[in-house]
Every structure is written in C-alpha cells, then in structure tokens.
C-alpha cells in the first residue's frame, strides 16, 4: 500500500481523496454560512457548537489542516515534477485546442486560493484561536450576552475591500473546482456510465458553492445596519 502512494497513479489518487475531503468541508462550511443569511440564531448556535465541540476542534480540525496542507504540498510537488518531465518547451503550443484553461492552470487557481486561505486564516481563524485558547474565553458571548458569531461576521464584511477579496478568492475556487471536481472522480477511476451525470453535478457544484459564498459576503455587506 505504501508503494501505491509512491507511484504516480497513487499520488493522483491521494490528491483526489484530499480533494474530496476538502470539497466536503467546503460544502459543510457553506451550509453553515448560508444559515447566517436565513437564520442568524441558528447560525450562532451551530457556530458555537463547531467552535467549542472538542471532537470538531481537536479531531476534525487537525485533519482538516492536514488535508489542506497535504493537498497544497502534494499539488506543488507534482507540479514541479510534471514541469521537469519536459525540459524544452514548445515554441508554439495551442493548448486551447484540446483542453480547458482551468485544467491547465490548476496550479495558479490553487495558488491564489492558497493566498486567500492564508488571508482568511489571519483574518478569521487566528483571532478565533486567540479568543478561545489564548484569552481563554470559550463562552462565545459578547458583552451584551448575545452570541458574538453573527455580529462579528456582519462586521467583517463592512469594508468593501474584504468583500472584493472574497469575491476574487471564490472566483478562483470556482475555476479550480470546474476542473477539480470531475478530475477527482477520474483519478479514483470513476469513469463509467454515470460520468455524464457526475460532470453535470461537478459543474453545478463548482459554480453554485462559490457563488453562494459570494452572495453571503455581499448580503452581509449590504445588510449591515449598525
């Protein structure tokens, strides 16, 4: 089995498996975030649960971090290896004739997503860690006794620059997913009579989820009233 993951095929399966995990994570992340649009109270409760449940915090969260780091590291390693497989490049190469821009530029879409993620971590996640584990306040409450999550979320999206940054980040995510979703299925060997349907679902997922995140960001930017 260890030999498997050393092979080229094994590595791409590993990429696919981490991708599936990340895609599932994004889906649940979206599911929770969209609550903020429809039901702030529920959003607060779920957020508090996710932020304080030990299983989530100390088991799922490290797995997630590992998944993210693995996907990026492996992606970069493979990209370098793949580039070295052609020492002299073509004078003229008509890539558009046979493949999509997205499929050829996963490293760039992925790279921008990484930059976004770093910003996102600094912006959201590190302050969270600070409150919970450095300051030690795990109550999840504001001074007024209400949950802080919805309030903070809305506040974050007041500056227009952050909204634009998010939009750009999610456009890259969409580009990445437009190829990545189906590519992951192909990598684990799922190419059969269901492929057509999977491709349809993949496109829908790749467009709708990032679009949803963008809508959430814009919604809060426009609806913040304090």
């Amino acid at each position: 089995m260890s030999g498997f993951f050393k092979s080229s095929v094994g590595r791409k399966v590993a990429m696919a498996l981490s991708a599936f995990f990340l895609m599932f994570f994004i889906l649940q992340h979206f599911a929770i975030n969209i609550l903020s649009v429809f039901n702030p109270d529920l959003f607060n409760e779920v957020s508090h649960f996710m932020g304080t449940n030990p299983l989530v915090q100390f088991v799922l969260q490290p797995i997630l971090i590992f998944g993210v780091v693995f996907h990026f590291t492996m992606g970069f390693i493979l990209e370098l290896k793949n580039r070295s497989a052609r020492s002299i490049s073509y004078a003229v190469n008509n890539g558009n004739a046979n493949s999509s821009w997205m499929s050829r530029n996963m490293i760039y879409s992925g790279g921008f997503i990484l930059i976004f993620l770093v910003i996102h971590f600094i912006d959201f996640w590190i302050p969270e860690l600070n409150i919970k584990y450095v300051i030690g306040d795990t109550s999840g409450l504001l001074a007024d006794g209400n949950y802080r999550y919805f309030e903070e979320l809305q506040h974050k999206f007041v500056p227009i620059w952050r909204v634009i940054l998010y939009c750009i980040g999610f456009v890259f995510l969409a580009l990445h997913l437009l190829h990545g979703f189906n590519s992951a299925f192909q990598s684990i060997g799922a190419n059969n009579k269901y492929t057509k349907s999977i491709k349809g679902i993949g496109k829908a997922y790749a467009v709708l989820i990032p679009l949803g995140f963008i809508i959430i960001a814009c919604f809060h930017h426009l609806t913040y009233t304090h």
Partner: protein
Amino acid sequence: MNLTLQIWRQKNAKTKGKIVEYPIKDISPDMSFLEMLDVLNSQLITLGEEPVAFDHDCREGICGSCSLYINGEAHGPDRRVTTCQLHMRKFKDGDTIFIEPFRAKAFPVIKDLIVDRSAFDRIQHAGGFISVNTSGNTQDGNAIPISKHDADTAMDAATCIGCGACVATCKNSSAMLFVGAKVSQYALLPQGQVEATNRVENMVAQMDLEGFGNCTNTGACEIECPKGISLENIARMNRELMKASLK
C-alpha cells in the same frame, strides 16, 4: 499554395537545436503533410543541404512512426489523424507552420524532428503481455466466450498505435493514456486476469521510472490521440492499480 515553414533543426542528441525558417512554394492541397516535407527535402538535397529528418513509415496512419508537433498540436490541427494523414488542404495559402518534435524528457531528440520513443517499449517489456507460450495446444479460441461489449472495448483500447501524441500533448508529458490503454485491453479480457495485479504494478512502475509526468486529467491526450483512445482507459488503470494495491 505557398507557405513558410519554421522547423526545429538539431544535428544530434548532444547538440543544441533551433528553429530554422524555410519558405516553400507550389504545394498542392492534395498532398499529405509528409509529402510536403518530401518536397522540401528534395529541394534541400538539390541545394546540397541536409534534408530534415523525420520519422515516418507506413504513411497510412497505423504504424505510429510519424510524430511532429504542428502549430502547437500533436499531428497537427486535424482530428483523429496522424501526420501522414494530415492533408495540406487543412492549411491556407500564406500560412506559417511551426514544426517541432514531440517534446518530453522521456523522448529525447535523436535528430531534427526524430525522437527516441523506446521508453514506450520498455513499459511494454515490464508487463504488456499475457504469459502464454506458443504451443499449438492452447485451448480453443471459443472456449471462453467474451461479451461483445468487453471484446469491443478491449479492441478500442488496443487500437493505440504507440505514436506518443498523448505524451507530446500532455502539459505534464504524462504517458498514462498509452499505459492505460494497454492495461485496459488486458484487464477487459478473461485471458488477462491472471496476471492483472503484476501487470499494472510493473507497467506503472516502469512508466514512473522513465520520467513521464503525472496525469492531471486535462483530457488533451484523448482529443489529440489519432485513434481516439478514451480517458476511460486511464480511469480503468487507476482502478486496476488500486485493486492491485489492496491485494
């Protein structure tokens, strides 16, 4: 037709190459691309220059010898053809045509447009066979019925001509379409089952050893493959290797 050719010239594997421009006149649209190069070469010979070396043999699209990266595409802009079947009617009078060798670290240039594709052979040596001796006592050809669907799918995979367009086209110089096709052909036939585990492991290991890149599923290989070998074969190879690794 009058054309401007930009052709990669390289004396041998050790020297550096460069693109050289050759104008060419009075090309008939009915010529094949290689016949157009024949015309150029006969002109070069008359001028006392060295002709452009390129691989070719059957000139009917089956031997897989001819290669050439023409205007940024393996076997040129037409679909489902090899370079010998590409006709000049696909180009316009006055066009500039870039002609480069198939490029991959695993396919080193021998001369001009000729590359060494023996890496493909070595992958086949590693497992591209069914271990059966020639005896005359094998069981009757009809002893094991094979569903038409499986036989046809195996045939579709087996039509690969080993030209290397998949590698040349792939942004990663991956050979997975080639290897996937061979693995698939045997995986789909009952005769190939016995050695399936070893075959896929050995062939993939050899492929990696040869320095081909990894597949990122861009699908370019399938589009540029002169025989239209399907991406399904790569998926099948992935499955086969996963299956093998669990054994």
